[in-house]
């Protein structure tokens, strides 16, 4: 036999929703068959009566009274249930953790954290470019972890990023450290004056770790994704990163890390590096570096040495002079084959395209050794020139005639001559060459003349006198090849065309929106960054037909 018991609480008000919730909890108690919790209005009393829940005490309740009714299998169960009312009213929903809102769209993420400058994207590759474009649309830098993004999408994204002054790191970018906060995979390294740009995730990690272990610190570590230095992408992100670090006051030394880039891209990057106004350590694993150092550019053979060199430079960093650029092509007229070869080996990293009759790469081969094209280095001692003639070390005639030919070429901007002294050489090479230079400078004052003089103070030609003659004619003198290469590279390397807008300084503290892999969000939060997780899902739940309609509606 069921027992119905009521409790009337006069003048107690609870919102009806609280009451319904209490009622549900009462009804769920063991032994309880049904329960009613209502304000005792006539309508509610009628409702209870219909449900067989109204007995004497309830009938007597007034509209402003709270009426609690329990029907249970036994007296004890009914009383037990009523005794728990206060406890149940105090209960909050299980867990009680206030789960912050998780937006589903990037747009909502942006609204929730307007301060975010960064969007981390790790959604499946086929959707990643679209999300990255959305991020750029909303004015955010992109850290694109996703792989399997089409090359043309990467090019388009980076082009737009450059136009908007936004950085696109990736696709397939595994790591970065921005303002001391690791994005994606990153080591905990101290902050300091060394800024890095890397096309290789683990390479970048290894160098930042090395810097830390050598006692140095990192200002920014910018990732670019592995394809950035491919010819098609033209190092768009590395150039942006390099320019950013060059302008960044907190950065004193820059490190560039990559697998070997293609020729033209390397030339672009190294030319740009020369204008950084601070030491740049280049570590292109497997790249045949022409020297340990050319101007402000240092070549490291491996990741560890890159870290070591960078830390060394950062402790006593001096600002290298920036040599003013000029236009026009180099014409190197050599009498010595190995000197020509060494000059080419150094300059090919900065001057592009460059041609020679002693080509190192097949692409450098001259179509016709008798006519220079673009930057050109000619060994006039080659057989094609010396058949039936004296070697140019003994006879200046060939060189003087070629010199005249170059001067008459409007594209010539700088002429490099070697002057090799010693036994067997011409008795006064500088005399004839200086006279020619002086005379040509009258008609072509825009051409710069550089002479590489190889000789000792004991040589019969009197090296000092030879140098004085050349200098008097207006030539700039170097005594060994790498110095000449340094100078010419700095002077003639194409001024990189800084297309698009420069990156603005990254704001601190770092705030980011993470779209995709949740552990990146957790890691951002653990590092104290302000972050929002977007619970991204494929558009239209992956329904291709609907997604394609949505795509057609975009931009309309």
């Amino acid at each position, binding site marked *: 036999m069921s027992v119905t018991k009521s409790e009337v609480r006069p003048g107690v008000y609870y919102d009806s929703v609280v009451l319904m919730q209490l009622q549900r909890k009462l009804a769920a108690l063991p032994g309880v068959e049904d329960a009613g919790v209502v304000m005792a209005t006539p309508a509610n009393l009628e409702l209870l009566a219909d449900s067989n829940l109204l007995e004497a005490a309830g009938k007597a309740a007034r509209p402003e009274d709270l009426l609690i009714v329990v029907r249970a299998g036994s007296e004890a169960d009914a009383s037990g249930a009523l005794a728990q009312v206060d406890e149940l009213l105090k209960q909050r*929903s299980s867990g009680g953790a206030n789960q912050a809102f998780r937006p589903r769209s990037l747009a909502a993420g942006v609204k929730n954290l307007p301060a975010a400058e960064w969007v981390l994207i790790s959604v499946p590759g086929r959707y990643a470019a679209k999300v990255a474009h959305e991020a750029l649309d909303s004015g955010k830098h992109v850290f694109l972890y996703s792989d399997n993004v089409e090359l043309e999408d990467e090019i388009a994204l980076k082009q737009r990023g450059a136009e908007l002054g936004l950085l696109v790191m990736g696709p397939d970018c595994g790591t970065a450290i921005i303002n001391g906060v690791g994005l994606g995979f990153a080591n905990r390294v101290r902050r300091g004056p060394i800024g890095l740009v890397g096309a290789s995730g683990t390479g970048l990690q290894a160098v930042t770790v090395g810097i830390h272990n050598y006692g140095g610190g990192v200002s920014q570590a910018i990732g670019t994704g592995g394809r950035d230095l491919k010819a098609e992408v033209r190092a768009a992100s590395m150039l942006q990163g390099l320019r950013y670090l060059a302008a960044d006051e907190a950065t004193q030394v820059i490190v560039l890390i990559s697998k070997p880039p293609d020729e033209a891209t390397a030339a672009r990057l190294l030319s740009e590096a020369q204008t950084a106004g601070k030491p740049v350590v280049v570590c292109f694993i497997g790249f045949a570096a022409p020297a340990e150092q050319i101007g402000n550019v240092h070549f490291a053979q491996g990741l560890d040495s890159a870290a070591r060199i960078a830390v060394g430079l950062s402790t006593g960093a001096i600002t290298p002079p920036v040599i003013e650029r000029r236009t026009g092509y180099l014409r190197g007229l050599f009498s010595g084959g190995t000197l020509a070869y060494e000059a080419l080996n150094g300059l090919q990293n900065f001057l592009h395209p460059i041609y020679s009759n002693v080509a190192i790469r097949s692409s450098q081969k001259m179509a016709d050794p008798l006519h220079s094209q673009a930057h050109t280095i000619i060994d006039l001692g080659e057989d094609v020139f010396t058949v039936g003639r004296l070697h140019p070390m003994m006879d200046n005639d060939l060189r003087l005639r070629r010199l005249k030919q170059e001067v008459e070429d409007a594209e010539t901007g700088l002429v490099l001559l070697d002057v090799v002294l010693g036994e067997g050489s011409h008795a006064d090479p500088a005399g004839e060459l200086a006279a020619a230079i002086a005379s040509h400078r009258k008609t072509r004052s825009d051409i710069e003349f550089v002479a590489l003089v190889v000789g000792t103070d004991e040589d019969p030609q009197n090296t000092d006198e030879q140098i004085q003659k050349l200098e008097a004619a207006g030539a700039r003198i170097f005594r060994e090849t790498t110095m000449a290469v340094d100078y010419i590279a700095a002077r003639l390397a194409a001024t990189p065309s800084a297309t698009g807008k420069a990156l603005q300084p990254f704001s601190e503290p770092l705030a980011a929106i993470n779209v995709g892999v949740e552990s990146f969000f957790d890691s951002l939060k653990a590092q104290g960054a302000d972050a929002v997780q977007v619970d991204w*899902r494929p558009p239209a739940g992956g329904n291709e037909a609907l997604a394609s*309609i949505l795509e057609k509606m975009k931009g309309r």
Partner: protein
Amino acid sequence: MIDIAKANQTAVSRMMEARPILKGVTPAKDVIPGMKPNLLLHAGPPIEWARMSGPLRGAVIGALIFEGLAKTEQEAVALVEKGEIDFAPCHHHDTVGPMAGVTSSSMMVYIIENETHGNKAYSNLNEGYGKVLRYGAFSEEVIAKLRWMNESMGPLLAKAIEASGGIDIRALLSESLHMGDEGHNRNKAGSIIYTAKLAPWIAKVVADNEVESEVLKALGDNALSVLNPVMAACKAMSASAHGIEGSTMVTTMARNGTDFGMRVSGLGEQWFTAPAEVPDGLYFPSFTSKDANPDIGDSTITETAGIGAFAMAAAPAIVTFVSGTPQDALNATLEMYEITIAEHSHFTIPQLEFRGTPTGIDIRKVVELGITPRVNTGIAHREAGVGQVGAGLVRPPMKIFEDALVAYAERYKL
């Protein structure tokens, strides 16, 4: 080339600029276009008798008895089955009604006039709680209450409203959202404001103190007394945004207890329908979800216009519907920002630093993100004659949004 963003901006701006004023109360046949004695308006998309759910059938029976067209349930059913009665959605006649929404020709209705765009909308009077026609109850006491509303309350409200010069429902809503209402399931504050605004005019125009007392008590006791004018106001607002070429904004969401229906501004009069779902909610004593009828009523016009579940963050007192914590209420509103076009310029939420409510559902965002609109709702018993059994939360079926998107692509040749 259609500029969807611009079309949507036009639509949502019109909806927000609309200024619905409660202008009067009068029998349906005098004002509702196309109203006639054998026509019954009902909630939701079109539906024939055979497919009507229990509560809608109950309300139809009650309305036929109220109109004197039938004396008993059997007579009413026979009349319908003979084909003597025409049915049409309220929405086809500029009208909205909560739950079953059944509106017959002699019922008193509120007249809302949108002063910005000139269109009008109508809604019946709210019956209060317990056994009521809108939940499919049709017992004698239900009919008696309807008669009292038609004969005593309605005429008095008509005079009072006329004397007041009109009540600005948009302003009332703006205020009630700051007092814990969300405008759909919770209209406590709004109903009190409504009663307070009318009381002096009722006192001024009334001839009989007894009637005044009854009417004021009916208005004051009923935390939903303002729901019907609010719904008509939302209808007037959303109707002014309908028919904008190229717009993907939803202008109607309504359920008839069997189907959930939707119309889109740029897709003409076409309804997109799918089976309505059973709300997830809290139940009155002795009822469970087994007793619940699938989702019913035109009251989703509130969510359509940017309040109701969309303004959940403003109504912490009913957070239990969304699982319990105030944070959940905030999250409910934050989620709706994802699928809407604008933040309302008049309806704001103190809890979100007075951000405007999420307004103007964009079918594109719904489909793209897989987020359907939230709806706060009452729950009717599945059988005719029983009435309300609870209240809770429901969402429309995703299919209607997908169908609408496909229809849009066809219509605009994408």
